[in-house]
């Protein structure tokens, strides 16, 4: 009997440990959200969102972070569009209709998986080397290119999974009507997988907008809005990093506000993803 009691004790003990671990982890997450929200809200004002920093703002902290907000959106939208142009064809190529089960596709998948793990600072360093080689300075286009590398593997992976969920019977029906592979892909597969594809794009966008290491040297930093692809551009993550290093409380407050705006943007994108996916999937064939 003693043996059995001991085993039951162990069961209770382990369950307790697990609940403690989960509480600790999710508690930290909630603390993080609360701290960033409270700190950010204190520094928040309408002017913060719609004004550019005034000259010498690193000392006094006047003006807002509009340069970083606009810059982040430009960078992330540009990189997402560029990544989309490459990710969709690659994801289609990975389907059984094209390269699917060949060694080539296996290799490509492995490669993309490895790219997915490469730290974004490495992409940033490579992007910077490219800019130096071309004789350019840090600019919007450089940031977009570096960020595209960060987003591409995330997007292809999610798209591949979405495309694979399309029932085989649907494709076979299309082929039996003498549609070509391309027509089948365009009119059947992509439409059926649309919610998943949109999710993939937004997922990559969310990752891209939060990434600092890749745009740190490739996009540069400025107090102004860019006028062309070849102007340097600020971004929210880099703004958080720079402004937080300032010894002035006023400037640090801007950093907290920027972090809060970034967090809200990322949360909005993830909520939007769920809503959009649910709405789009109303028109699917099941």
């Amino acid at each position, binding site marked *: 009997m003693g043996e059995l009691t001991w085993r039951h004790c162990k*069961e209770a003990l382990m369950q307790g440990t697990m609940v403690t671990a989960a509480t*600790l982890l999710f508690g930290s997450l909630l603390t993080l959200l609360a701290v960033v929200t409270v700190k950010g809200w204190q520094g928040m004002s309408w002017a913060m969102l719609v004004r550019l920093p005034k000259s010498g703002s690193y000392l006094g902290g006047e003006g807002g972070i509009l340069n970083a907000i606009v810059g982040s959106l430009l960078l992330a939208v540009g990189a997402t569009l560029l990544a989309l142009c*490459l990710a969709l064809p690659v994801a289609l190529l990975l389907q059984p209709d094209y*390269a699917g089960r060949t060694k080539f596709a296996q290799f490509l998948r492995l490669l993309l998986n490895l790219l997915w793990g490469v730290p974004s600072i490495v992409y940033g360093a*490579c992007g910077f080397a490219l800019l130096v080689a071309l004789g350019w300075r840090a600019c919007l286009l450089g940031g977009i290119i570096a960020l595209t590398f960060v987003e591409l593997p995330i997007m292809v992976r999610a798209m591949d999974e979405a495309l694979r969920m399309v029932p085989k019977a649907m494709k076979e029906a299309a082929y039996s009507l003498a549609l070509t592979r391309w027509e089948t892909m365009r009119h059947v597969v992509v439409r059926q997988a649309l919610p998943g594809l949109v999710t993939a794009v937004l997922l990559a966008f969310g990752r891209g907008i939060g990434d*600092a290491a890749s745009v740190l040297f490739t996009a540069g930093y400025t107090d102004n809005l860019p006028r062309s692809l070849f102007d340097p551009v600020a971004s929210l993550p880099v703004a958080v990093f720079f402004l*937080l290093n300032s010894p002035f409380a006023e400037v640090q407050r801007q950093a907290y506000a920027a972090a809060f705006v970034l967090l809200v943007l990322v949360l909005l994108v993830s909520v939007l993803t769920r809503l959009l996916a649910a709405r789009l999937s109303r028109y699917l064939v099941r």
Partner: protein
Amino acid sequence: MASRLWQERLATALLWASGFLVIGLTGALFTALFVRALPILHRQPLSSLLTGEQWQPAKGIFGFAPFLAGSLWVTLTAMALAVPLSLLTAIYLAEYARPQVRLTLKPLVDLMAGIPSVVYGVFGVLVIVPAVGKIATFVKTHLSSVPLLSPSMPPTGYSVLAGGIVLALMVSPTIIAITDEVLRSVPMSLREATLALGATRWETVRFVVLRAARPGIVSAILLGFARAFGETMAVLMVVGNVPSMPQSPFDPAYPLPALIANNYGEMMSIPLYDAALMLAALLLFVTVLVVNLAAQLILRRLGRGWAN
């Protein structure tokens, strides 16, 4: 008819071209890193670069040992914290939690994975660094005789431990998500058979489920390690960035990614500096690649990796 066929051919050609483009870009990336790092490799053998403890770019002395040590200290601290926490949480989510609890917590894991690293950094600066600073001061005054624990410099809180805690929070969702998936793919019949023999739930998990899921869990940990090793901004913000060998978890460190991030702006004026930083990026790239490759091969053997 003819135009449809041509359309088909063109589309196929474009798809294949995009596939080769990805391979070409990856090759170019690696080559660029390697070529830009070559000048410093020509001047000094890799072994002496990796073991050198001096870092004085102005004098042309480049020793990577403090940065490698910093990276290892921070990453291993993070893994020591993240692995038990994440595995216990994943087992709880996969084996114990009621469906409703699971449905509430699972999106939180995704949310945690999606939070930008600078936001983790801000949290670290605001909460973790001051907390670690207090602990470090306590240790310094009361436990200063304990080796490997007592800080060798005046403690500020910006330390290996602070970086480790922040990193642990960041890599936990990766480990949890993969472990959870692996655990749920263990056949239910295995659990039923074990429970029918009179095992408790924990015994079932420990002796049957975890054993069946072991390779998957190993690769989850490897992927978490790779993520932690390359993470830049959050660590950079809390780890102190002092280029010396850390002696305790309360000492500041200077990991490789932070080295690259901090010095890229000013490197152009000093000869070989850019090659040294490119070598740092290359080291990072190769380490992460090898660890990830191992994880992918394990997952592929299991037949449930993405590379399946």
